[in-house]
């Protein structure tokens, strides 16, 4: 099986075909961040809603390649219900993983761990990153 096949076989296709938490809400209690990847036209918006210290909801919308769209979907599922600190820890660790930088392997990335395969495709790291960067920005913006 090629590395590409490995990558697509798993969670990625499932989320690409059946994206979770897709569609934005027009609600001021959500924080919204929009990121574009101008080189390939990926275009993703992420919303998060904090209640107390918990991520009460996380939504996403946009278009792009399968890596980009699926990782946005996986992001939302991973984040809902986490504390803000957990969420930040997971997201920063995930971003280090896809960039092939040293990361803390004891932190459970849940389904997002399949994106470890992206390291074989450095040109696609951006695709796997933009939704997660947008998410971190929503948390920052709330501060």
């Amino acid at each position, binding site marked *: 099986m090629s590395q*590409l*096949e490995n990558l697509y076989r798993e969670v990625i*296709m499932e989320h690409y075909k059946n994206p979770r938490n897709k569609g934005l809400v027009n609600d001021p209690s959500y924080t919204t961040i929009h990121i574009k990847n101008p080189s390939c*036209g*990926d275009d993703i918006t992420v919303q998060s809603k904090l209640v107390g210290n918990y991520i009460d909801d996380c939504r996403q919308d946009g278009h792009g*390649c399968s890596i*980009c769209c699926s990782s946005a979907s996986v992001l939302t599922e991973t984040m809902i219900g986490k504390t803000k600190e957990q969420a930040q820890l997971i997201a920063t660790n995930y971003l280090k993983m896809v960039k092939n930088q040293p990361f803390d392997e004891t932190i459970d990335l849940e389904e997002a761990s399949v994106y470890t395969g992206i390291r074989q495709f450095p*040109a*696609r790291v951006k695709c796997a990153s933009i939704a997660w960067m947008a998410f971190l920005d929503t948390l920052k913006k709330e501060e």
Partner: protein
Amino acid sequence: MENRYRNDFPKLHQEGYVYLDSAATSLKPQSVIDAVTHYNQHLSANVHRGVYFESYEATRLYEESRQIIAEFIGSQIEEIVYTRGATGALNFVATAYGLPTLQEGDEIIVSELEHHSQLLPWQAVCAKTKAKLIYLPLNAQGRITVDGFKQVLSSKTKIVALTYVSNVFGFLTPVEEIIKLAHQVNAVVVLDAAQAIQHVTIDVKKLDVDFLAFSGHKMLGPTGIGVLYGKKQLLSRLEPIEYGGDMNDAVGKYTSEWKDIPHRFEAGTMPIAEVIGLGEAVKYLKHVGLDQIEHDTTRLYRYTVQQLKKIDGIQIYNEFSDAGIIAFNLIGVHPHDAASFYAEQQVCLRAGHHCAQLVIQWLGIEACLRASMYFYNTFHDCDQFIKTTKEAVSFFKSVGF
């Protein structure tokens, strides 16, 4: 069949490497690499200054390249200005010519085929001068036509800024007729020849074009060097946009005088090795011959399109390219996903909007794949590309696209 030029390109010695991205940048022949190295290794001296041998020799080669390029496009030597690339050249025209001459109500004709480097400088100039960008209507295929041009040409037209060959479709613009018509209303024509210079014989005098820009790296030369051709009487009227060493004649405390064209526009130390490399690239193009290049490239292109059309699940956007470019998609597969598949097979092509977002919008798509071939490609390369495309279609189907 053997390709007799292939050996001249060291990058092609790599086993299994299928390079189909020549519209992004061409490969470099050994002679160009050697010319660049010769300067760095044996000369490494600045131009127009030292009196020692190395400096004299560097200056000679630097100016000899200008002569070679001038002959290549039929211009006078002083009409060749070295720039950073087509981008630098087009920005120069917009800033040095457009900005001071345009007024509110003036019109600049452009098209949706323009590369961002022939669009954004004019947008910026329009924002400052209140001149207006006017888009000529493309025909159904996406071509610039004389008819479409006539529909927007008027006495308000001051500048016509068009691509000579589109970098997404590879369509050739009917420039002869357009230039004639533009001159009837005294408009100045600026052609972006970045995708034309390596395919089409250009004679700037016959064309009577006012400004013409191209990049070295798409015509077998090094990166970081390009050319602006400008008619002498136009260039002579322009103020420099950069000031510094080498471009001045007499420097006073409060005012100074500039050298004549073209040196007036080449402030500071230029990319000397790259200039010399570009001269060598032109020699190589002449040695092969643009007619031969066109013949070989077209043969490969036609063959590949015919094969590609037979594959189910492929959409081709430009079946009749004039410059060996195929813009296409795997239906239902984002081009970035597809490009990774090709990359795994060492088939190099490009995915995205190709710095021409308006064409992509015109097509009503998000992005596309682009395979572009040149005379150093072989039928074997094309077959590898077709084989990989077939595999890609079935792969993406198998994983659920």
